[in-house]
């Protein structure tokens, strides 16, 4: 036991002391953080788009302007909520507690509950100025002033030489060079690229399609013409077409003699739906957001397990091969038994794996504590739910079981190979096997007691992944007990077998044996 501890400790310390180990660990949170900030900055950094809007029908310009203004206000609103979260006085993670006594928290809460309604209210109250006045008492004194996000879409005037009342084809032809980027528009004596042209022909109303009426099939484009080279940024055409549809529907109602206001009210009526969980105690059946997270959490655990196992196994393999290729193994085997050496390595590398997970969780935790915004707040809540759930013991069990099972196999592979290259060829099937439960992750969470899933859970190499995956859905007792027994038995078997292979393999030189040769060698014993 002493020897195992000594070997494990050296194995662990040697790992932890290398720069590569820390680089490998930290790259994950660094990439995560970088991706997060990159995404935020990228969405803020989208350049202002200039568009030319020509309404020859003269009926929709008001609606379109409103729509674009509304889109802008929605952005201000969103950023303002983030600003409040970053700068309010007391940091109170538990939002449902009695912290609703100031305007800032009320705003945050309403934004969480129903964004559309909150935006309506924001607009009705007078937008940013009002909100800023209301929220000021609740904000820290040392805060930075709120920065208004730049407008994303700005209407530009037509170049002077183009007649807005010309035929649509002519206007389009004249603006083509601008839309292609060959010519620049001048806005406020600055040359800019024209992003899009929205052209509403004079007779556009003839193209309105109604149920039961066959649309006219004419030549050329029908309805509103949206000209733009960029096809992926659909925010502008979406905003415009939604606002125009809203407008024409309003007109239809008026034409039919229906009160507009009534329609709007009717459209906002809705039936709530309560999700209830029959397995919960009476009176607590109502499914909360936390419960949903809890059911989705296994995906995260399975993923974490996979990454961490793969990393550990890599160390195990390269370590064993190092010892084998420079023959340290012989000295070791003259000092300790193959079994002690193997167990020591398994434990040492296992500790490295745990260190990795601990560092990840810690950096994740630091990230959400140090950097607060509406998204990280959500992540924090999810994390709290997950860490508080009974999934943790499951994860710990399946992590260790999975580690014991897979590392046993990989250690045996390492002992048979002299170079990492040889080992990689033999590793391939083992990695592919793990891809199967991984690919099923999302499906399993949705349908945890599916017959195929249940059957596959009994395959020991899948058990840690699939049963972890199903853990939140309280799988049938027979599955839990049965697969666990089978898993433990196969761990014992694999460790025993790889001990034999290890003992035989570590002193082998030359090519790794073929499968049949390996079986023959095992039968002969070492």
């Amino acid at each position, binding site marked *: 036991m002493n020897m195992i501890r000594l070997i494990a400790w050296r194995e662990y310390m*040697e790992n932890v002391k290398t720069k590569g180990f820390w680089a490998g660990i930290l790259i994950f949170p660094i990439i995560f953080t970088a991706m997060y900030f990159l995404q935020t900055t990228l969405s803020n950094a989208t350049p202002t788009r200039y568009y030319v809007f020509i309404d020859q029908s003269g009926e929709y310009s008001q609606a379109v302007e409103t729509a674009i203004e509304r889109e802008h206000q929605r952005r201000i609103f969103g950023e303002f909520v983030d600003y409040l979260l970053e700068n309010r006085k007391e940091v109170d993670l538990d939002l449902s507690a009695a912290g609703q006594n100031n305007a800032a928290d009320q705003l945050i809460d309403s934004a969480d509950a129903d964004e559309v309604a909150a935006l309506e209210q924001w607009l009705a109250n007078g937008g940013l100025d009002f909100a800023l006045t209301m929220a000021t008492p609740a904000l820290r004194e040392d805060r930075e002033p709120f920065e208004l996000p730049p407008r994303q879409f700005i209407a530009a005037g037509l170049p002077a030489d183009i007649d807005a009342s010309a035929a649509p084809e002519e206007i389009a032809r004249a603006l083509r060079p601008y839309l292609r980027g060959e010519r620049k528009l001048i806005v406020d004596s600055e040359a800019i690229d024209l992003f899009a042209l929205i052209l509403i022909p004079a007779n556009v109303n003839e193209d309105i399609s109604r149920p039961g009426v066959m649309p006219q099939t004419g030549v050329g484009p029908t309805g509103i013409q949206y000209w733009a080279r960029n096809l992926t940024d659909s925010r502008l055409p979406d905003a415009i077409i939604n606002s125009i549809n809203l407008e024409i529907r309003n007109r239809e109602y008026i034409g039919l003699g229906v009160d507009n206001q009534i329609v709007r009210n009717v459209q906002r009526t809705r039936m709530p739906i309560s999700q209830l969980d029959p397995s919960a105690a009476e009176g607590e059946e109502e499914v909360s957001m936390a419960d949903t997270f809890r059911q989705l959490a296994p995906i995260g655990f399975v993923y974490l397990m996979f990454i961490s196992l793969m990393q550990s196994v890599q160390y195990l393999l390269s370590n064993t091969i190092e010892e084998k290729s420079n023959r340290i193994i012989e000295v070791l085997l003259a000092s300790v038994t193959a079994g002690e050496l193997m167990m020591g390595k398994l434990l040492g590398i296992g500790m490295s794996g745990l260190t990795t997970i601990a560092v990840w969780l810690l950096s994740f935790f630091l990230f959400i504590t140090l950097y607060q915004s509406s998204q990280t707040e959500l992540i924090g809540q999810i994390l709290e739910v997950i860490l508080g759930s009974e999934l943790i013991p499951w994860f710990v069990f399946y992590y260790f079981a999975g580690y014991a099972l897979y590392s046993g196999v990989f250690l045996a592979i390492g002992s048979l190979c002299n170079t990492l290259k040889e080992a990689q060829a033999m590793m391939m099937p083992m990695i592919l096997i793990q891809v199967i439960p991984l690919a099923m992750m999302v499906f399993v969470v949705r349908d945890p007691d599916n017959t195929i899933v249940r059957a596959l859970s009994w395959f020991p190499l899948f058990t840690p992944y699939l049963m972890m995956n199903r853990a939140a859905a309280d799988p049938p007792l027979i599955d839990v007990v049965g697969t666990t027994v089978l898993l433990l038995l196969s761990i014992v078997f694999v460790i025993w077998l790889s001990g034999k292979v290890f003992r035989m393999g570590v002193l082998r030189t030359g090519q790794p044996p073929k499968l049949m040769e390996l079986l023959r060698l095992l039968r002969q014993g070492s």
Partner: protein
Amino acid sequence: MRTASLESQTEAENSSILRLEHVSKTYGDFTAVNDVSLSIPKGSIYGFLGPNGAGKTTTIRMILEIVRPSAGSISILGHASALDVRNRIGYLPEEKGLYKKMKVWALIQYFAMLKGMNKKAAKQQAWHLLEKYGLKDFAEAKVESLSKGMGQKVQVLSAVAHEPELVILDEPFSGLDPVNQSVLEELITDMASNGQTVIFSTHVMQHAERLCDHILLIAKGRKIFDGTVSQAKATIPRRVILESIDDVQRLSTIAGVADITKLDADGASATNAPQWQIHISEKLNPQDILRSCFELNISLSRFEFTEPSLHDVFVHLVGDEAREHAFR
């Protein structure tokens, strides 16, 4: 009862620290070691000699129970398996290798601890050895920064740091420069005078000749010779070379002279006198021949007597085998 068994055990160890009886090892069709028996007395320096591929390393691995013999039995330090007494054995394998990223002193400490030393004592011992054998300046260096020879010295130290009763060194001299070879020889004699038993394998006869009390000569897996160095030399008939124009045959009356033959004169001699080779027995002192020559009035232009070297013995006993291997 207990005392009695302990005593008998000690006795057994005294007479023989390691005993191999009819040990063989086969790998498939290939026989690496074939029916080797030997017995090594406590406190001796024992050399395993043999050409490349003779089975030295396999024998050593079997002694250490790294591989199990296909047949025969081994008794080491009074136990059937080296695994039971592995803390009392030190081992340097043929192919040298160390953890590259470890510091030199920590590495020696680690291997000593694997042999059951406690942490503090192991550290002290590591520093002591490094200082004693001229590596103190490298104690804090990483192993990967050492030269090959230096690394090998470190490995030898890590193999013997726990002061084992039995030290087994597989080709300890290969790759060392002459200065470090003599440092290693010094280490080996130090250990022997400390009461430790040292077994080492080599194919360089000079080391064996300088150090060993006993040698084992194997070739192609078979034991060819096992005994003291002087016994080994006795396997080659001792000879005296004479150059004389007189009748040398008269010397054959001396007890201990086996035969006298005239050597082919290839014109090597300046005097053109005939050369004679006289084989003599172990007991006969060559001085007696010289004295007899005076008494019998045989005038000599040359008298030559040299003890056969272990090299001669080696070539004599395994020469054909070694050559065969060399050309394979």
